[in-house]
């Protein structure tokens, strides 16, 4: 029993528990299952998200303050997050362990410290320096954002595809009650994910040691940690067995690098002499290296890179209010674009929870590199369900501000303000069946959800080419009433090039992207 209650076993149980909670947050991200489950909590306790959003916006949103718990844990115990909590770390450790067929000598070789492990500190500094003027790009490398994005866009649809084609059990699917979900960019997001996981077969915990900016931040904070791995020099025989399974490559066999140690405690188990222990600093006499291996020179270079990347990202003409793309349609509740990009960590929570699959990770087209993988609506795939506000509930950083359905539709207290408009619909008379071909249609008018409808028809009799006289209902848009939900575009029978389409102009979240000067249906 005592042997079971070793720290390594408890760490294993903790990793498994958090991974199961992670899978639970993915499974519960469905309209009828979500209830009050905290599906974004793992992202909200990410310390990097906390720090960088403070730098970019100056405020702490909703639950982000809970990351202070992780912060205190790190200040006391070191990089516990990396090996006890982080699900991405669990995945790396699992695949690295599963396919590792090296002998002891090769293992110890692969777990030695390399100076290139300081690359992650450079990434961290670049991101922090980018965040200060207001370009948040941590989502590209943040471990939780990456793992959530990969699961949303690549792994859960793959699971649904497999289960859907074989045993077809509703509650096992991640997206029951809809057709197979598609996501733009899933090829690249999935490939990057597979690549990162596959790298563990070359160097274990490659991402965690070399790339992870959260790990870098926690590594810096471990400077203050009270507890650390202590090697009793008198008992140590320099057998190097402690390097067999060292996850962080923190050199426990020599002078411990505190900023690299993941507190996995594998070294404690592997030492045959019981020379290693985990003790507070006042109880040990051994020397440890507290400062991360990151020189001033590297810091300066990283800082300059960060600062100079800001104009690199911002001046490509995709994001300002004059030349924005018509495809840049953001979810309801989103804040204005320049503020949005200060908050979005590209975690794709909103994309996963959207019941109609209309939210997609942006390609380079809508917003260039800066808006890559942020959520945009693609009305060819779905539409924004009228009484749904789920994307605003799960956003961890408030890029999509939490709204109630009343606010979305402009009812109750929000009557004066009006509904949230995502864009405006337009009709292309060259493709529209009644306008161009004298064939009756008006699906768009039928499905328009507003009351009164934002698409109305007027009746006209025409003689078609076959000599029949038909009474046509010809549709036209009322932009004062249109909320840009996109169901007209999604249902138009000219499926590939819809005759009625929604563009971003007229969205209510932005003062400078409005279309109408006044709304003719309001008295004021």
């Amino acid at each position, binding site marked *: 029993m*005592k042997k079971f209650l070793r720290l390594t076993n408890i760490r294993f149980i903790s990793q498994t528990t958090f991974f199961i909670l992670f899978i639970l947050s993915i499974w519960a991200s469905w309209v009828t299952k979500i209830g009050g489950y905290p599906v974004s909590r793992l992202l909200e306790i990410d310390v990097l998200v906390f720090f960088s959003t403070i730098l970019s916006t100056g405020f702490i949103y909703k639950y982000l303050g809970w990351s202070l718990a992780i912060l205190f844990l790190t200040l006391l115990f070191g990089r516990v997050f990396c090996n006890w909590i982080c699900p991405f770390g669990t995945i790396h450790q699992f695949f690295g362990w599963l396919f590792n067929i090296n002998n002891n000598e090769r293992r110890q070789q692969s777990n030695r410290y390399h100076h290139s492990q300081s690359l992650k500190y450079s990434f961290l500094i670049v991101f922090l320096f980018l965040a200060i003027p207001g370009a948040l790009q941590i989502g590209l490398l943040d471990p939780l954002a990456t793992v959530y994005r990969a699961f949303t866009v690549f792994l859960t649809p793959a699971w649904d595809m497999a289960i859907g084609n074989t045993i077809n059990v509703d509650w096992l699917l991640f997206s029951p009650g809809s057709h197979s979900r598609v996501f733009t960019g899933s090829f690249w997001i999935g490939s990057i994910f597979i690549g990162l996981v596959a790298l563990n077969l070359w160097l274990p915990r490659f991402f965690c040691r070399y790339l992870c900016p959260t790990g870098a931040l926690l590594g810096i904070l471990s400077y203050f940690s009270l507890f650390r791995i202590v090697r009793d020099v008198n008992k140590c025989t320099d057998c190097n067995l402690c390097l067999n399974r060292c996850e962080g490559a923190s050199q426990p066999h020599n002078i411990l690098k505190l900023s690299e140690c993941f507190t996995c405690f594998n070294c404690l188990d592997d030492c045959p002499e019981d020379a290693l222990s985990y003790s507070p600093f006042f109880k040990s006499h051994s020397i440890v290296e507290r400062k991360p291996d990151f020189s001033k020179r590297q810091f300066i270079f990283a800082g300059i890179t960060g600062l100079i990347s800001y104009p690199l990202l911002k001046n490509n003409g995709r994001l300002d209010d004059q030349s924005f793309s018509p495809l840049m349609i953001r979810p309801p509740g989103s804040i204005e674009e320049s503020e949005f990009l200060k908050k979005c960590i590209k975690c794709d929570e909103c994309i996963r929870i959207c019941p109609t699959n209309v939210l997609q990770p942006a390609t380079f087209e809508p917003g260039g590199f800066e808006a890559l993988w942020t959520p945009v609506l693609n009305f060819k795939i779905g539409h924004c369900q009228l009484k749904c506000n789920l994307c605003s509930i799960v956003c961890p950083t408030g890029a999509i501000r939490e709204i109630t359905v009343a606010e979305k539709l402009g009812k*109750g207290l929000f009557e004066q303000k009006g509904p949230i408009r995502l864009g405006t619909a337009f009709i292309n008379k060259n493709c529209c069946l009644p306008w161009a071909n004298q064939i009756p249609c008006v699906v768009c008018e039928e499905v328009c959800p507003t009351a009164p409808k934002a698409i109305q028809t007027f009746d006209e009799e025409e003689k078609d080419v076959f000599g029949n*006289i038909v009474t046509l209902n010809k549709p036209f848009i009322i932009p004062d009433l249109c909320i840009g939900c996109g169901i007209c575009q999604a249902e138009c029978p000219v499926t590939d090039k819809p005759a009625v389409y929604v563009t971003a102009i007229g969205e209510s979240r932005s003062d400078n992207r409005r279309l109408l000067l006044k709304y003719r249906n309001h008295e004021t």
Partner: protein
Amino acid sequence: MKSQKIFNPKKRRPNRKVILLSETISSLVILGFLAALVFWVLGQKNHFNPADRDLNINQLSQISKSTPLYHKPLKRWTESGFDQKKAEPKLAVFPKSILSNEWQVKKRIKQFNRDNLFEKINGEAERFLDYHFKNLFYLNLVHRNQQDEIDIELYDQGGIPGSMGIFSEHRSEGNLIKKEKNVIYFETAIGAIGRVENYFFRISGLNKNEITRNKIVQIANNFSELVKVEEKIDFGIFIFKEKLKIPDTDISHKSQNVFQYDFAQDFWFAKPDPQNKGRLFVHENTTSNAVSELFNQLKIEIEYEFTIIEQTPNSLLAKHNFLKSYFSMIKQDKYLIGFENAKQFKSMANYIKILKKELPHGK
């Protein structure tokens, strides 16, 4: 070659021997914390406000003052090159006088023939088809106020017998018959029903108001301008109208199922006395044999409900078992004449005598 292992072969066996008590206690504490965390997460299932994720019906009721929208009226099709206002709507057989400043054509005239009549009047179509129906012209008029509408159905029954027959089917005792030149009609709750020459018409209004009613009466009167179709005068009309001077309104014709028998067809009826229900009838056939056969068949059938009082090879007199009314018929050459539903024997006999005198002699 070396055999390649796929998975990690090493077992997780710890090398250490000493495990401190502090480690065990902290492990237990951590385990307890993890369990608490899991229970907390699972317990969050209902920790949300459903009102935020849905719209209260009370909030919707506040907008019941819906935005009224203007709807453009239907734009009619006209041949291009013509001015919309000056273009005259095609009225087919309808007289031009039914249009006015107030009333214009709303929908184009729809025409139905024997094949597609049921599309317009479904179940009733059979009746019309029985009465030699040829064409239906359907027109819809709308008032300038966009609210009042009038539907006109004009049936071409192929000849006067047809239109008379179908009119008699529509007509019941209580209707007040009005006559305007050659138009005969009566008003109904929603409009008017009538006939003129070979046409039978039904007019109905969408709303019951003064404007609609006046217009309907005017339309009925205007139908007297309908083109007169030259038609040979039918035997029944000849006999009853020309010879016996019985007015039009009391003459009717039945082409099928006379007296509810499927072998009896093509009978003309006339009511000599408007106060009485009794009717004279006359049937002309091609040969006297056919008439004889018809006479015999009728005799057999009426024996079920009538008691035969008198009969000769050429005539029959019977009295209804319950109603106590008289039925008599006489066959002569290729004619079959008679009287049905007579209350008094003497007047019946009188009428039959007059009718028999008027029958053309010879073949």
